[in-house]
């Protein structure tokens, strides 16, 4: 879902760059306020893991592939603001060093995968935790929130493409959410796999969430 240069028109990418820039500034402030000693290495590890895992494209239907996004995972582990910072770090490096996503579209990608993927996805998880309770509920809720984060990010991307005049909204919305409904299942499965691994080996790391 890394948008290349050329897909978004100037007004759209400028507006999204401004929104994401503001969100990053707020996230830096919030993270700085609440960050503890223990969270710092986890910020590095989580970002490194998400970067590596995003390289693993898995095949989905019809000659298409998808890969892990990691927004909800980052936010569940470290909180929604730090989640935005982690996604931002990954996206900036992917863009500037690996030509994955355009420079002009970087703000849009941070909006889609950081603000929606991590922040909004996290609050879906929080709301679900109030509705669905039980011993396995964090995994069920993490799965649903991760799946939804992918759908919402794909929908946001469609809206951005249509505002830019690149493709009609209905066309892109159906195609993008359709394929990402499948990719989202992968997202959900990887998120629960990581959470259950951490719960088994270092359950204390599931208590680091802040801000």
């Amino acid at each position, binding site marked *: 879902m890394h948008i290349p240069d050329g*897909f978004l028109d100037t007004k759209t990418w400028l507006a999204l760059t401004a929104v994401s820039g503001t969100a990053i500034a707020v996230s830096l402030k919030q993270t700085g306020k609440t960050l503890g000693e223990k969270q710092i290495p986890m910020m590095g590890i989580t970002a*490194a893991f998400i970067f*590596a895992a995003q390289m693993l*494209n898995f095949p989905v239907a019809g000659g298409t592939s998808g890969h892990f996004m990691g927004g909800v995972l980052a936010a569940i582990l470290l909180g929604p603001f730090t989640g935005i910072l982690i996604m931002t770090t990954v996206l900036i490096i992917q863009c500037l*060093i690996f030509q994955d996503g355009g420079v002009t579209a970087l703000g849009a990608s941070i909006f889609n995968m950081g603000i929606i993927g991590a922040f909004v996805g996290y609050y879906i998880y929080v709301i679900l935790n109030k509705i669905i309770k039980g011993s396995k509920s964090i995994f069920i809720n993490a799965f649903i929130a991760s799946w939804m984060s992918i759908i919402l990010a794909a929908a946001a991307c469609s809206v951005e493409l249509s505002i830019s005049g690149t493709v009609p909204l209905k066309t892109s919305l159906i195609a993008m959410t359709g394929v990402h409904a499948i990719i989202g299942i992968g997202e959900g499965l990887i998120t629960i796999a990581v959470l259950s691994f951490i719960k088994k080996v270092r359950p204390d790391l599931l208590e680091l969430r802040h801000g």
Partner: protein
Amino acid sequence: MKKLIITGLFIAVAIAVFLSPLASSHPDGLEKVAEDKNFLQAAEEKEIIKAPVPDYSMPGIKNETAAGSVAGLVGTIIVFCIAYGTGLFLKKKAPSKVKRQTSK
């Protein structure tokens, strides 16, 4: 703490180096939609910058698998350092803030 960093980083690096060659080379969701709905050409020759390691393949390494693994290794380490560094930087700035809050 040291053990956590070593183990965590080891897992990330192992994924980037050893699993990335197994990744599907099919176009991703957005790329496929762009292909199907005929707007992929909107991005042609539009790159603003020329990134040093395009498409996760380290230039100068002939073996494709090795080029991908090295690119993954480098990227994982850089991302770790920046995210960790951001944390250290924010923490360093934090104590003064805490003081200010308590003195209010």
